[in-house]
């Protein structure tokens, strides 16, 4: 009941927006821009034929692969850069320079290196999510409070134990924040990545729907589905923040 009450304002605004959209399309008698009903009908048509699930599956596969590769690369590297001063001094300038380059700018290089198969979008997603995760993980190590390192040192534990039992768990909340940002960016980039001539994915669906007969109902349906899946993915990452071992950082 409480939840319902909290959701009520945003649901109301959403309903009003959809209503306004409908009214405007009806009033202007647009032949190209679809009404909400046409969008829903288009989406249902795609879902029934099974094409929609193929596109969603293809996009999720690319984002999943690119993101997991980025995690496997960025987390160990970030921990190392955070812990070893020389590694940070050497690599941080390079990452700071690569970070502001939009993943879109990598498209020509992706095509050159990986062609137009699945590898190109996976590479682009990797590029887009790896930098925020490296940065967050590194700062997670840098912001470990000294008192914890001192206490661990007091017990005379080895450097390996210190790293495993103090540095990694202490940085973990920041690592998870980085993963949340990384996955968000990865999903953001998937559409652009799939605009390179591929025959599947939600990004492809958008471009293809426009090119193949101005099916703007499907364009908007795909956009809404991308939004909903993005919300879902973020919700999944939020579940990680509820882990007992990281709760201390988010509580309060």
């Amino acid at each position: 009941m409480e939840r319902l009450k909290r959701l009520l304002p945003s649901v109301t605004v959403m309903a009003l927006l959809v209503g306004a959209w409908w009214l405007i399309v009806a009033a202007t008698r647009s032949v190209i821009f679809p009404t909400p009903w046409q969008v829903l009908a288009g989406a249902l048509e795609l879902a029934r034929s099974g094409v929609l699930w193929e596109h969603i599956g293809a996009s999720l596969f690319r984002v999943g692969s690119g993101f997991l590769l980025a995690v496997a690369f960025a987390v160990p590297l970030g921990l190392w850069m955070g812990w070893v001063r020389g590694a940070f001094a050497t690599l941080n300038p390079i990452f700071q320079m690569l970070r502001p380059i939009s993943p879109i700018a990598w498209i020509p290089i992706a095509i050159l290196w990986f062609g137009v198969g699945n590898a190109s979008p996976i590479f682009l997603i990797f590029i887009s999510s790896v930098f925020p995760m490296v940065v967050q993980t590194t700062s997670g190590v840098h912001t470990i409070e000294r008192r914890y390192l001192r206490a661990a040192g007091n017990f005379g534990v080895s450097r390996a134990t210190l790293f495993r039992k103090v540095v990694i768990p202490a940085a973990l909340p920041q690592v998870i924040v980085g993963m949340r940002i990384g996955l968000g960016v990865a999903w953001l980039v998937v559409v652009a990545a799939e605009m390179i001539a591929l025959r599947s994915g939600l990004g492809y669906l958008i471009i293809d729907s426009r090119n193949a007969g101005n099916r703007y109902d499907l364009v908007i349906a795909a956009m809404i589905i991308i939004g909903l899946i993005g919300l879902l993915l973020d919700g999944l990452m939020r579940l990680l923040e509820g882990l007992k071992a990281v709760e201390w950082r988010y509580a309060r």
Partner: protein
Amino acid sequence: MPAKIVVQDINKAFASDQGPLPVLERLSFSVDDGELVAVVGPSGCGKSTLLNVIAGFERPDQGLVTIDGAESVRPSAQGILISQHGSVFPWLTVQQNLMFGLNGRVYGERETLADHYAAMVGLKGFEASYPHELSGGMLKRAELARALVVKPEILYMDEPFSALDALLNLRMRNELLRILSEERHTVVLVTHDVEEAIHLADRILVLSSRPATLQAVFDVPFPHPRKLSSPAVQELKVAILRELGVDGDSA
């Protein structure tokens, strides 16, 4: 009996924009085995620095700190520091915290030891709790237990109970005395609370304001349990406060 800790003529200065800032100046004293020595002094006088130097976290610029005759050059589990802000690892449960320093032992043995000390400080039933689920007093108990479980010869306590409210502070002092009567430790206690020092210590060192020099030493001859309201205790308190530059009547 040979002294456990010997501090010989140590000097320590910190670098600052205006040149070196002397913090400790020609400090010398010793602490006997099993003795509880309290160090009191005005705030910012360098008490914590002194403790860090003795515990091996920092090196003196000149002079020597020896523990059992060996120079103290780095922190070790021989002496555990308990700081004001606490350092119980928030990502580990109480039991895991207590087992942290117990490496190189059989797993079952570590758990038994950890649970024994958790019970000793009154945390029985909270072994699986995370620190953020505990109250301030319970966190202090966990910190104390984590130090005790490695059976250190020395406890360095830096304002250990000052973040607690008055009632809890008093209760933790009594707990500490009970634990120390069960397990003999040498304790160096840094505090700004003169009453706490009298309550706990065998001997009280009074430091001057920065740079800290040894200004006075008081023996605390009262047997435990100590009655803090007794005239003799009050008299000692007034004498110590006078050394600290506080008029006894107003305290």
